[in-house]
């Protein structure tokens, strides 16, 4: 029975590894920033699944703690990245508007 489980879950791990590579390619290629954030989020979820499967295969219960922490960190990463990029965009936009106002006054 143990062998059957290990065959099942090791093949599942191989497939998850291939999917992780595909996500990495999307994160590198993705034309927009949102594509990259989505791909990184997906990779986090896949890694959590892989860690849980490993915790069953190796019989180590503490690996699930790491999976919990990994979930929280991947959520935190998404929140931070989106907030930072929105802040950068708004800052740039405000500076551009200020520069345009100055130009307009100069011509008048």
């Amino acid at each position, binding site marked *: 029975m143990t062998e059957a489980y290990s065959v099942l*879950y090791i093949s599942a791990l191989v497939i998850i590894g291939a999917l992780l590579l595909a996500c990495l390619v999307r994160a590198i290629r993705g034309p927009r920033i949102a594509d990259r954030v989505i791909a990184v*989020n997906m990779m986090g979820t*896949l890694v959590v699944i892989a860690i849980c499967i490993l915790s069953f295969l190796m019989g180590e219960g503490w690996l699930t703690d790491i999976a919990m922490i990994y979930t929280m960190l991947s959520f935190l990463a998404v929140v931070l990245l989106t907030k930072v990029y929105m802040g950068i965009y708004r800052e740039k936009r405000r500076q551009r508007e200020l520069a345009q106002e100055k130009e307009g*006054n100069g011509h008048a």
Partner: protein
Amino acid sequence: MLDVIRFILSAALTATGLFCLLSGVVGVYRFRYALNRVHAAALIDTVGILLMLLGVIIATGFTVASGKMLVVIAFLWLTSPVSGHLIGRMEVTINDELEKDAEVMNRAYVQHEKTVETSGSADAAEPAEAEENMEKEEKEEAHE
């Protein structure tokens, strides 16, 4: 006998979960725009992880580790909608040519997202500075 049933159940859940993961990744490759890709990525965060971890929980049995896996599922189900919403909001905010890529229903909201003030201290200082500069320029022009 019971072991065999447990293995079959776990294998079925794992196979279905792997199918969901695969269709999520294929969807991320086939959709053309980031806001559509959020839809495919949400499949992995909800159904994919639920089925895969349920398979592992059934294989492990009733232990502390399987309880922690249930906590992981609950946390991901709570946070995945939030992260999807944040990614969509970021895309709407930073895309200057949104009308080319997607249909915009509420232009006022997009404009509000683009221009809303983020934080207090730095914002308050700069407009005053700009006004001072403008006054200086006006004086110089008058002098000439």
